[in-house]
């Protein structure tokens, strides 16, 4: 091992400079377009959620169940959102793409949505309150709710394969529309997302 004093001194100084440089980082914020793709950790993110909702919306409006129902019943079908259960290995917020779908379907004027079981309770409480406090003209009667024709249910599943610093993450979202009259599945939508995540071995 060969050591010389100037060399050591320079390396010490360099270490110190590095140290201070690392400590001197401050928060920086940049505005982004919601459509822009930015993958950070490889985990489920906003882009995945948007891709799922786009795919599902396109598919659900194109299929025959909608036309058949409107033809036979001469009205729009009403749909209720059931549980979309997360069977994946991540804590995924399923509400984002479910509400994306809801919005797109309502705006298409082809489907009517009724409030889900949790939302319903709040509305009922309000009606109860109106019964006592609202004027006769504006009071809403009970027992006038629209019963849903279909229920939207679904699952998110993942398969992870990892070796060393490389990981393949496979997400599969399945949504099903079930007819409340006869339990028939009238539509099944599926979206698969596959990601290759490579972790770095070194950082500064």
């Amino acid at each position, binding site marked *: *091992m*060969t*050591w*010389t*004093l100037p060399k*050591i*001194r320079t390396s*010490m*100084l360099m*270490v*110190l400079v*590095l*140290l201070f440089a*690392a*400590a001197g980082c401050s928060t920086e914020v940049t505005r982004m377009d919601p459509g822009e793709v930015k993958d950070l*950790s490889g985990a489920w993110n906003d882009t995945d959620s948007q891709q799922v909702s786009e795919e599902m919306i396109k598919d659900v409006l194109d299929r025959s169940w909608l036309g058949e129902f409107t033809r036979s019943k001469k009205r729009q079908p009403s749909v209720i959102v059931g549980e979309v*259960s*997360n*069977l*994946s*290995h*991540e*804590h995924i917020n399923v509400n984002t793409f479910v509400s994306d779908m809801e919005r797109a379907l309502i705006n298409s004027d082809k489907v009517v949505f009724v409030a889900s079981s949790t939302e319903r309770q709040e509305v009922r409480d309000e009606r109860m309150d109106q019964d006592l406090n609202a004027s006769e003209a504006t009071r809403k009667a009970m027992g006038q709710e629209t019963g849903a024709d279909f229920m939207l249910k679904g699952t998110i599943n*993942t398969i*992870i394969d*990892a*070796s*060393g*610093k490389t990981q393949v993450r496979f997400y599969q979202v399945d949504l099903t529309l079930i007819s409340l009259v006869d339990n028939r599945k009238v539509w099944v939508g599926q979206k698969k997302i596959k990601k290759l995540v490579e*972790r*770095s*071995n*070194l*950082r*500064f």
Partner: protein
Amino acid sequence: MACRLARLFVSFALVGTLAGCATYSDSFDNIQRDLSARQHDAALQEIEKQAGSKTDHVLYLLNKGMVLRMKGDFVDSNQSLESAKEEMDSLYAASISENALSFLINDATVSYAGDDYEQVLVHLYMALNYLELGNQTDARVEALQVDIKLREIGENIPDSKFTEDAFSRYLTGLIYEESGEWSDAMIAYRKAYEAYKKYQVNFGMAIPDMLKHDLIRLAQRQGLKNEAAQYMKEFGIEILQEKKPEQESELVYILNNGLAPIKREHVVSMWAPPPVVVVSKSGKKSSNVTPMPVLVNIALPYYESRPNIVLNARISVFGKQTDSQLMEDVDAIARASLDARMPAITARSIARAVAKGAIQKSVDNAGSGNNDVGAQLISSLVVRVAAAATERADTRSWLTLPSNIQMARLPLSPGSYDIKVELLGADGQTVATRVYPGVEITKAHKTYLSQHWIPDYQITRRKR
């Protein structure tokens, strides 16, 4: 030359302050005292003081999460543990700057990413938090993450004593079973069984009776007759297939007993002849002078168990009672993990001693051209003191973990119960009693209840 030396000294002093005077585990005394007195808010305030540390941030989050769950604040606890998990993940990549610094100063300059067993236990405690909140779905997510983590550890260090975490496997089995995923539960129980067999060899731990029953019951339910028969033969127990293998409602009590061992520092200092260093050109000048010995300092960590008088717990409800069983010996796992790392830690420490010796030698040689013998002596001493003072053992570990984890299960019909927990010491003496009033047991569900017992510790830290 004096100016150069002064600068060198200043840089050493700066680095010395960065490294801190006390080791990490010394800073834990106050927190431990607050926890013993069940002053969770005071302990949290004390932990908050460590929030600024960049290299120990994971530990800050882990301790915070753990104390929050002792307080019963499971939602915030999970938030803190989730951040700890994310940070551990980002520390997967080794830092070039931190490692370079650790070669000159000490191991504690590297950001702490958590030992393997700590990285697994984060998932376990998050799962327990979700279970106590009654959130089965998110507990299942943690169960899946445990599987990924354990696969990663098993692949990286296959010959380590800790490649499977038995209790985490068992708990994931319970979670899957409650979700009605029988085959996944069966696999988890099998893996738990394999891991407990390893625990038996490595840590002298018995295989929990609960697991034996679960294995047989589920094997029968899945129609795996041969496997069930084999288990019955192995365990020497006979269980007739129940008519209704459906979920029954039950209470699952978890005792987090005591506190995990704490790392202390053991320092060996000695004067040694300077390492053979070729000092360029100026080397000839000093060759006729007897070289000044260099101060070699080697600081190594060792684990000190934190004593505990409670051996297990007895829960009683309505005349029914059951004793808790040891599920995970964190103390033994932590020790085994440090033992496995010790050769690498020692090697790094020796390498550092050589490097620091070389620095001392080169300062001596550089000063030898100087006519002022006093200044030369002072500079030589200063560099020795600086080299010794920066050599500290890395005593970081997740200190709010329990020393061991125990579990008791009690089948109960749905309803509201007052649950009495007695903590038992040697000879079955009751050390402490606690009653949990109005615990709701719902139909076909497991209700989780956990307690963290921290005894009064006599703080007997040896001052250096």
